[in-house]
């Protein structure tokens, strides 16, 4: 039993009541990580000094003003390594950023740390967040605590595993095509992909700028809502951050689903769902119906083209964003090159892994003269159709229910030789990124002992509804507190 099993508000009350100190909680998190993480590989680096310093500051605040201390004061968290942290190495799990120490922190980091969180360190991910299994990290694979022979999901695999194994209370990830929701589903935690622009991207190392969003991963829907509340809102440093006021994500969580119209897209059930995943999904839909929701079949007809559109648009934007990775301003250096071109080629060849090179090439191809109209422009038009599908759907229903992924966690190495099989892992998550809408993955059940997530998609700025439906699933499923075998749970 670890204190880290408790939800954040419970820990907050215990910290306020001085049952233990934030420093004691931080030490427990660091010791637990030291003990369990060698088998899991969720952290790329721990920052114990920073954690203990922040915990001591949190203790001072909790002592001076216990009733005024924020709920996140003294709570251990960690960040995906694509999120810049001032003075702490940030690599995006790529060799080309080995040794890069950002001179500033991302806005999300500043916002959390102003509230007194305890930052434990930086979490593993697929290189530049490109991947669905966490096997593309240049440094290590992250393993699934429910079965060490299986992947954690990606690209925010470290962020999901650190929560699933109760190493951190909550983490931040980023979601470009499903990179928060997918690993959340594979590891049995809650993951939120906010509406595009709801959370500042300042200080997020860019993958595909029109799709990327930062969001929380946590044990419970309430914990995720607490973190989202802290990081959401307009930021003058990110011109795509939305000026709309931030909703109260906590107030409506327990209102249930009675009277809500929930849509089930028929196309999402035609993608070759694993039998166990289908059973969990159908069981959840029945449960929500019994709770009073009105279930309606809907159609998102462009689904069949969404995957193809995404795998043109995301690599195209990546090929442009990653042009800055030239080894000059950061990175391992230019070697013994005698011309600038040689220097670039040396840095980029040595610095990028196979998947990143594949996507840069694909993106450069899609944008290149002669192919632009056939691929990039066409994909952007299909993107319009995907967004229109959702517009039509949300005129009919309040939220959409779907499996988060067609399967539960697959075996390490199972899809690495077949890029298209790996890409297809995102087929049910990436349409939400193309349309910019909100989504949550919440643990809904198990298939052959592996966690299975239910995805709740909401309209533009529909986080309140998504979280409310997800909370009902969490209450009905009653599994949020089950621990994986690595982490203290029974077989």
């Amino acid at each position, binding site marked *: 039993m670890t204190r880290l099993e408790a939800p954040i508000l419970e820990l907050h009350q215990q910290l306020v009541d001085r049952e233990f100190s934030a420093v004691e909680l931080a030490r427990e998190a660091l010791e637990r990580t030291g003990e369990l993480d060698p088998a899991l590989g969720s952290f790329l680096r721990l920052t114990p000094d920073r954690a203990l310093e922040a915990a001591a500051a949190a203790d001072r605040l909790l002592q001076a003003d216990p009733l005024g201390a924020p709920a996140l004061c003294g709570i251990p968290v960690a960040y995906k390594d694509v999120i810049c942290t001032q003075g702490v190495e940030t690599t995006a799990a790529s060799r080309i950023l080995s040794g890069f120490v950002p001179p500033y922190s991302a806005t999300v980091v500043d916002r959390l740390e102003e509230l007194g969180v305890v930052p434990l360190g930086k979490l593993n991910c697929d290189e530049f967040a490109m991947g669905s299994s966490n096997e593309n990290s240049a440094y290590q694979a992250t393993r699934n605590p429910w079965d060490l022979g299986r992947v954690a999901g990606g690209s925010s695999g470290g962020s999901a595993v650190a929560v699933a194994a109760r190493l951190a209370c909550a983490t931040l990830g980023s979601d470009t095509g499903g990179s928060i929701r997918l690993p959340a589903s594979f590891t049995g935690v809650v993951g939120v992909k906010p509406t595009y622009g709801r959370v500042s991207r300042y200080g997020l190392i860019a993958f595909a700028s029109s799709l990327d969003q930062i969001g929380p991963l946590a044990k419970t829907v309430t914990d995720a809502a607490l973190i989202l509340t802290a990081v959401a809102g307009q930021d003058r440093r990110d011109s795509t951050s939305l000026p709309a006021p931030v909703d109260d994500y906590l107030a409506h969580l327990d209102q249930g689903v009675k009277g809500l119209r929930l849509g089930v897209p028929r196309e999402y059930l035609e993608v070759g769902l694993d039998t166990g995943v289908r059973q969990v999904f159908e069981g959840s839909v029945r449960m929500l119906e019994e709770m009073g929701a009105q279930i309606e079949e809907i159609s998102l007809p462009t689904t069949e083209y969404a995957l193809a559109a995404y795998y043109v648009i995301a690599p195209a934007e990546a*090929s442009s964003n990653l042009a800055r990775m030239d080894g000059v301003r950061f990175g391992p250096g230019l070697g013994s090159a005698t011309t600038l071109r040689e220097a670039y080629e040396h840095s980029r060849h040595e610095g990028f892994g196979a998947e990143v090179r594949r996507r840069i090439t694909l993106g450069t191809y899609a944008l290149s003269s002669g192919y632009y109209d*056939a691929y990039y422009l066409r994909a952007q038009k299909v993107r319009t159709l995907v967004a229109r599908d959702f517009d039509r759907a949300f005129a009919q229903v309040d939220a959409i229910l779907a499996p988060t992924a067609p399967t539960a966690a697959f075996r390490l190495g199972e899809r690495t030789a077949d*890029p298209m099989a790996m890409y297809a892992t995102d087929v049910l998550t990436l349409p939400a990124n193309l349309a910019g809408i909100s989504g949550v993955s919440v643990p809904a059940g198990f298939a052959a002992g592996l966690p299975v997530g239910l995805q709740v998609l909401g309209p533009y700025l529909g986080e309140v509804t998504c979280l409310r439906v997800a909370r009902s699933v969490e209450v009905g499923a009653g599994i949020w507190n089950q621990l994986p075998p690595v982490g203290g749970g029974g077989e």
Partner: protein
Amino acid sequence: MVGTPGAILIGFYNPGSVAEEGAPEQQMESIGLSEVARISSLARLGMTPAELETLAVQLEVIVSAVGQLSRADISTVPATAQVGELRNVTRADVVEKGLGAEEALGNAGVKAAGFLRVPAIQ
């Protein structure tokens, strides 16, 4: 709940098209080894011949899969480059503290006299 504004259709956000001499006619078909080599060179990836061969085989499959886009009826559909309420953000024209030269150069491998140092362009 805030309503769904839908996709705002704007054309200016564009990762950039790469123009290069010798580019083929507009088409959607298979990608061969020589094309993969040309594209990879444009992207300054420094790939070896063996790496290019592997990549060409993989891209063949991927490009063929994304080729299904040609079946979508988009004849009257505008392009979406970015969703959301994208608007210009301005601030008062006053000097603010930014990164100093030392901080800005802190991660550079080779520097001299407050500048980045790189091989000559030839």
